[in-house]
């Protein structure tokens, strides 16, 4: 089973990113769970989203403590709590223009860190600060397509955004592909 934890703020699309990964994995005939951990819903409040992907039926309904992949949509959320319980085999995928290696090392994380300026990509390709789909593209590359295939993501983007027109679909496909190509190991 692969367990992913997504850290974002209300309104940044963390829940949608989780759902997108889950739906793409489902199309690859995997078992999935994707669920947000809410407080009372407020724009800007921290929201954790959990995604589990497995070849077998998923039984455990509790949240994820020991994630294998942590996706950070908002870098201001990085603190000791995010890094707690995370093994060095885990990978971090972070939306940032900076190199956050030192910060994460300070909190005791020794594993791989991948950084991508998904906000810039989203602003450029979509004209809006919605970095979630680009980040999923980056995550797919960082995990060497172990989580889901880029093709599955593309199919889901086409399906989910179909109603919003071809322009929006293509912009999102491009954003995902760019993050996939441009993500770098720090």
């Amino acid at each position: 089973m692969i367990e992913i934890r997504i850290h974002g703020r209300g309104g940044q699309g963390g829940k949608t990113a989780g759902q997108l990964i889950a739906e793409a994995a489902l199309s690859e005939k995997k078992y999935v769970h994707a669920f947000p951990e809410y407080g009372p819903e407020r724009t800007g409040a921290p929201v954790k989203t959990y995604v589990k992907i497995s070849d077998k039926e998923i039984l455990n309904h509790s949240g994820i403590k020991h994630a294998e992949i942590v996706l950070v949509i908002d870098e201001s959320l990085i603190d000791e709590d995010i890094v707690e319980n995370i093994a060095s085999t885990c990978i971090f995928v972070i939306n940032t223009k900076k190199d956050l290696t030192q910060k994460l090392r300070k909190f005791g994380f020794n594993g791989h860190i991948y950084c991508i300026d998904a906000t810039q990509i989203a602003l450029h390709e979509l004209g809006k600060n919605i970095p979630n789909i680009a980040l999923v593209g980056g995550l797919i590359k960082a995990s060497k397509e172990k989580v889901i295939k880029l093709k599955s993501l593309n199919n889901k983007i086409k399906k989910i955004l179909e109603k919003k027109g071809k322009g929006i679909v293509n912009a999102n496909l491009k954003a995902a592909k760019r993050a996939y190509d441009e993500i770098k190991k720090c």
Partner: protein
Amino acid sequence: MKKIKALTGNGAASEIMRQVNPDVVAAYPITPSTQIMEDFSQYLADGKVDTELIRVESEHSAISACVGASHAGARVMTATSSAGLAFMWEVLGVAAGLRTPMVMNVVNRTLSSPINIHCDHSDSMGARDLGWIQIYSENANEVYINNLIAIKLAEKINLPVMICQDGFITSHCVEGVDILEDKDVKKFIGEFKPKYSLLKDNIAIGNLALPDYFYEIKMQNVIAMEKAKKEFLRIDKEVNKLLKHETGYFEEYKLKDAKVVIVALSSTCGTVKSVINELRKKGKKVGLLKLRLFRPFPKEELKRVLGNKKIIVMDRSVSLGSDAPLYIEIKNATESKDIYSIIYGLGGRNIYEKEIKYIFERALNNKLKKLEYVGVRK
């Protein structure tokens, strides 16, 4: 034919409501069940259902409108949670007493105070004695299956049915759900043929009954509940032909040779199963009894399977001033002395595998106390 859709527990409930296309839905949306009514309103706006959707000013009115519409001959469904269910209280009893064949999805959330939007079972447990059939669902797949059972059961016995699922844990979790084709659902539930209708028949509903008749009428409710037990099994098997699932009043998970068994409801059962798989690998004889039908309560059947095992009952609610509801029922059914009560998860406090493992291990070593509150800070 079935297909797999990515749905939350709420999504599974609204999907089956779309397929059933009830004549009347009256609701007042409340967290965490809100998405059910959001989806359903969208289906109505998109012309996918032709239901009469009554937007009311409160849950008390929602259930009242449902009861009225049902006795006018309409197939009726609704959904609620927590304070919404509590506000329906008066009319919940009316619905059952009037033998109203309606189905309500209850997305379990705790009751105030303090105000809290997360899961425990205080809402539906509080409503357990009001004459509604109650079925609990472990995941979104079971929400769908249990709704199919409920519609037929309600209309066969003329009693209202609650389908319970865990707020947020199930209601907001996306998973792959097996969905039947629309036409297969329609064929399975058939057309609603009410035994009578206020609009067509010369009858009165909601009469006064003083001490000379009240008791006899109440006895009919008692008898109806007994009948509902048998019908549940029959309909459950019918649904199983369309969608394979663990049938029966309860699921027995590695129970037969188990020395220690946990009894629980809803999503926690999945987490318990996962722990059992791990402990079984180490040769520990542990099992689970997942109760599906809580009302009517399958007392004799439970006694037969739980017999002389060490029983741990996990309640996600408290009965302030007494023992927890599920524990009391299981103790009464089994008359066991080797039985332990665990209270957990109030107001949405997470329950983790390691806590369940710890409960099992201490039970195996005879170290469990008669009553424990798990996961609470001292």
